[in-house]
């Protein structure tokens, strides 16, 4: 096709020196004394009628893609659109757990890169994302679960990931609040322990990428809903669908032309892709979460129990953060259900009988786009210039940095980076699935 979308993109040198003031302890003291305000974390600018790249979805994935387009590839005429506010979707609703002890070599390599980007993120973005490398334990209550833990440990070992199966006594040592007694209903038989896993302040990741992208010229537009994707030449109605190319987006604030449009949404990924005539094999299901009132810190690691459908960690603020497995049916309701809190509480108390007097403070849900193999869909589509970074199920937050890095490379170079090659949309036509579903149950 004449005039590939990338050829239309102007590359500018990333603006590095002379940017806004850096965050530091000294800066806090100086501004504390002078009373000078900090500048805006990202600018408030007018929406233009055309961009080189339009990214739909102002969450970790969309913002990271924008950030790496600007920093790694000098592509800065980029708009990130969000129908609400930045981080209002899955990025602000997840339980902020990061890890890389996945089941497939493809998954392990991918998430390990993400984890290493998280590791240096605070200094890279000059914003403290409070990465807490507190270790991640996945409990096994059955011999079947233990077998899966061993499987994961073996795969992880081959990839050089710090991940091993530990005994109940070692579990107790790491998390004294857990009941490892043999007379509990589902005794803990062991756990997959992954020391590099942990938690992170999810909102700070969003803000950090937004700020970093903004410094380099990327525009963030909140309350800007995409109503349609404009295409030409495709086999479907209105030029959409295979064989066509994308020309822009129609938003609640007017049309924007762009040779490249990236779908970085979660919860609405299939609906947005449908606007370009691209069908995705995605089921959307809520995943429910809740926090308790704060108490003094007593749980030092992340604890996951697939059999009991629960994962839990304690924030530095003292709240226990709970998540469950995805609901068993398709739904767009993010309000949370009563049944979830009941089951959750019952299961948590089986793990930690001593916390029955703690109180559940707030519950919510996030939307998870589930694919048949529990792996994402990333890269090109049959519509030229329309990229997807979707299908993130319950693991999207963990993958934000590496996804942004790889998507930016894919867009800038028109080459699919090796690290995301296994996750292409075409695999559902070829059958070469990436079997993260093998270990199914709770993915956290």
């Amino acid at each position: 096709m004449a005039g590939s979308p990338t050829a239309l993109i102007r590359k500018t040198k990333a603006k590095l020196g002379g940017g806004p003031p850096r965050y530091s302890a000294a800066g806090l003291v100086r501004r504390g004394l002078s009373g000078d305000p900090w500048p805006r974390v990202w600018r408030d600018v007018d929406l233009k009628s055309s961009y080189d790249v339009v990214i739909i979805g102002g969450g970790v994935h969309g913002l990271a893609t924008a950030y790496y387009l600007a920093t790694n590839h000098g592509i800065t005429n980029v708009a990130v659109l969000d129908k609400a506010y930045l981080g209002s979707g899955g990025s602000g609703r997840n339980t902020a757990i990061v890890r890389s002890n996945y089941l497939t070599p493809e998954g392990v390599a991918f998430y390990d890169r993400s984890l290493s980007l998280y590791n240096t993120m605070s200094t890279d973005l000059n914003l403290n994302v409070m990465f807490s490398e507190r270790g991640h334990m996945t409990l096994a209550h059955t011999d079947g679960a233990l077998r899966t833990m061993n499987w994961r440990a073996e795969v992880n070992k081959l990839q050089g990931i710090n991940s091993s199966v530990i005994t109940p006594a070692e579990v107790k040592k790491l998390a004294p609040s857990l009941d490892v007694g043999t007379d509990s209903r589902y005794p803990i038989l062991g756990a997959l322990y992954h020391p590099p896993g942990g938690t992170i302040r999810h909102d700070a990741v969003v803000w950090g990428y937004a700020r970093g992208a903004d410094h380099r010229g990327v525009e963030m537009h909140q309350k800007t809903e995409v109503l349609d994707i404009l295409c030409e030449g495709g086999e479907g109605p209105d030029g959409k669908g295979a064989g066509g190319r994308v020309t822009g987006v129609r938003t609640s604030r007017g049309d924007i032309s762009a040779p490249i449009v990236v779908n970085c949404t979660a919860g609405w990924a299939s609906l947005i892709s449908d606007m370009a005539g691209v069908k995705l094999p995605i089921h959307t299901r809520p995943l429910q979460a809740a926090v308790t009132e704060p108490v003094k810190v007593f749980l030092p690691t992340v604890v996951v129990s697939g059999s009991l459908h629960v994962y839990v960690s304690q924030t530095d603020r003292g709240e226990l953060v709970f998540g469950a497995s995805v609901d068993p049916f398709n739904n767009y309701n993010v309000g949370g259900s009563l049944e979830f809190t009941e089951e959750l509480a019952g299961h948590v108390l089986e793990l930690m009988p001593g916390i029955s007097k703690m109180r559940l403070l707030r519950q919510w849900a996030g939307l998870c786009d589930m694919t048949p193999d529990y792996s994402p869909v990333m890269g090109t589509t049959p519509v030229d210039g329309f990229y997807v970074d979707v299908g993130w199920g319950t693991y999207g937050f963990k993958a934000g940095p590496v996804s942004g890095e790889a998507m930016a490379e894919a867009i800038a170079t028109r080459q699919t980076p090796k690290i995301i090659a296994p996750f292409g949309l075409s695999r559902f036509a070829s059958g070469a699935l990436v079997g993260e579903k093998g270990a199914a149950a709770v993915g956290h």
Partner: protein
Amino acid sequence: MELRLPGRTSTTGVRRLDTERPGEVIDRSTSVPFTFNGKRFTGHEGDTIASALMGNGIRIVSRSMKYHRPRGYLTGDFWDPNGALQVGDEPNVRSGHRKLTAGMSVSSQNVWPSLDHDVKAANGLVSRFLTAGFYYKTFMKPASLWPYYEKVLATFAPGGTVDLDTPHGEFDKRYAHPDVLIAGGGPAGMAAAIAAADAGASVLLVEQEHQLGGHLRFGSDADRAAAGTLRDEVGRRPGIEVLTDSTVTGRYEDNWCSIVQRSHPTVSERLIKARAKTLVVAPGLIERPYVFAGNDKPGVMTSGAVRRMINLYGVQPGDRAVVFTANADGDAAADDLEAIGVPVHRVDARAGEGIVEATGPASGLTGVVLTDGTTVDADLLVTAIGWTAPTSLLNMAGDRPVYDANAARFFGSVQIDNVLTTGGIAGDGTVEELIQHGEATGRLAAARAASIAHALRSATVWATETTTDAPAFPADDRTALERHAHPELYRASTHGIVDYSEDVGSKDLVAAAKEGYDSIELLKRYTTATMGPAQGKLETVNTAAVLAEARGETIADVGTTVWRPPFVPITLGALGGRIFEPTRVSSIQPWHEARGATPILAGQWIRPEHYGDPAAEVRNTRTNVGIIDVTPLGKLDLRGPDVPALLEQMYTNKWRKLPVGGVRYGLMCAEDGVVLDDGVTGRLADDHYLMTTTSSGAGTIWEWAEMWLQTEHPEWQVHVTPVTTGYTSINVAGPRSRELVARLCDDVDLSNEAFGYMQVRRGTIAGVPDCIMWRIGFTGELSFELHVPSGHGLHVWERLMADGADLGIQPFGLEAQRIMRLEKGHFIVGQDTDGLSKAPTTGLENLIKLDKPDFAGKPELAWALEPEQAQILPRIVAIQPDDPTIVPEEACQILAGETNEILGRITSSRMSPTLGRSICLGQVVPSLALPGTKITILLVDGRRVAGTVQEHHAHYDPEGERARV
């Protein structure tokens, strides 16, 4: 450093009044001992912890989260942000609400080392550097130090302490089906309850406080009289159930409501789940604190707090008061203070007067600066500047409340058929007017409930009353309550605390908004304002007001955050309730235990893993006869003319020609073609079948069968009855099994000719009629699987053991069965298959019948059977390590030679007692699946060993002759 604070815990201005107040709820004749921070005190019956503390002259009860500033009671009720205290092993107790009981050990939470001397108060000296979100801007370098910073930050976590040895405690749950559920027992809520009950509705009236009456309880003589009358009327009506000290915490789909009952006599908290036909939301209003400099000093209180303390508990909250009032409640607080002899300086917002700041030390205010520049000496500053409408339940029902600037608060904006509002949340009025509106609401709620109830009854398929005329769904004909004008008062000219529990001030909010966190949700996330224990009930509207001011917008433009359930926090114990998770055992379990069987947990079941020596159990079964208790095997009794259609739909193979007396093996796949379950189904009679599933799949497959019948093919006539526990299942296996069974059964011809392999018969075993027996087994030996009515299971088992003694009978457990099935190469769903294993992976392509019109997973399996998929889908193969003594661990990876490329994994692995060598099943890529292929296995210890792919899945007796004799 240590900051000594003057005044400390005792202030003379705070004390119990000598004379009784007319409406007080304490019993002065009683003495209730308790301790606070280790010191002994006494209160009275009827006291809350808060009133008892203030009655003892204690004004400072806690410290703030970040700056550890001394705090006293602000609202003196459930929502008090400063009143979260530790009581015994219970953290975060709402001391403004919790009743005092004898022996309570109460202590402050955010103090270190003590309430009086708190080292962390030093943070207050550097507060200008610690603006909200400061931690995002520092502690980044060096990265190696962050873990230590993090540990320090974590010590500032607010809240109490969990005693990890706390026993689970008694909790309970209840279901309720009221016609009308009323959230809030103030005048409007009580009037609604009375009117609804009089209209014939069953009513559940839920009040958060300990007593019905709402704000009337601490009001004038006339108010209290009105409350008393309403209470009496409520009490006279059997159709009204009253729950006090209880809160409606959530409203979910279809008016599914959660209620937490804290007043249950025997359990500490009870969760009530109510399917209400109509919900009346009448929670009243929550008085909003005012934002100004010094607004968190002990001695600053809301008018409601002061009136509660004086009128309900006979507590004098101070010696000299300034009352800043914009409404009648503030005026009444000033009147109440004067009535107990406290001099009051009134500052009337309606007359343009205002306050600037509260002055004095951190331990308590000593003066108030007014907008006219004067300073008034005071140890008590009362504010009455307006209310927040607690619209949570409306939000949960889909409402999006809208701000009304004239009334200075939010109101619901959406009409919801089964959710009505009354009382302060709906508007303003005299007590008379509130009662009238409540009555109209109660009548409407009852009428709507009747209409909804009729619709529900008529919707059920067996309804016989459909001829009855449906009561019309009544329109809302109520006269709306007025909305009285109220000044918009949010912040004085100075900055103060907005979120007390999070220590977030208006200055923080303004700074964050200027930095770009300028939508209400971003502001909340960045500053943590509204995220504390009150979840915004006190703070949200002030936060919105400060943001609106910073943005130059109106509060209506800014909006509020989304209120999420629960309305008040619920203990995990109450939510979890009693643990009803069943432990399942077969009727033979006592025998197993008596024989010292090692138990294994298999899903909900506990069953014998072995009786000491699984290898010996295998050898005996292969040479003599063994019996195993296989009761957990899922069993579904299927009856009806359309059973074959159901079977054809659920299994991948064909079932229409299965004759009576026949048994067939089948594979079930999900819609994505992935193996879901497997098992055998036998035809017992023309339209009577017995299906077996895997033990772990029993529940899933039952639900799945019902899914097909109820949602996809309601026209099929099939009854599914789970009979897993109705039968005790015993597999009799081994060359001498026929001889043994023959000794116990004389009404079935057991000969191979009459009762061949894969057939089913019904007969009498050991005198027990109606047993089902079929000739199948997982072990590969001649086997009879006996399904015995459960009550007789142990009897049959014992007879088998006794009558088989001379045949060498021994019981065998799950482990021996697993070894024997592995010797036979039978895969286990979920062990040898995984979440991506489509049917061809199992090697059972011949059981996938694409010429059937339909079955679950057919399109995917049609694709999976295309030739190119054979190059992609992994295969289950039998593998033998070349060194017969090496038993690879299950989960060992199969690699490409010396590389780390993964080509498969070992899924099952055992030492075979029969063959005297190690045997495995594994999943490998197609290129390794050919018999004779050499593979490399990585053992857990890092060694790489060679193995060979076998021709058959079965390592032993591949032709299956032993089972067919």
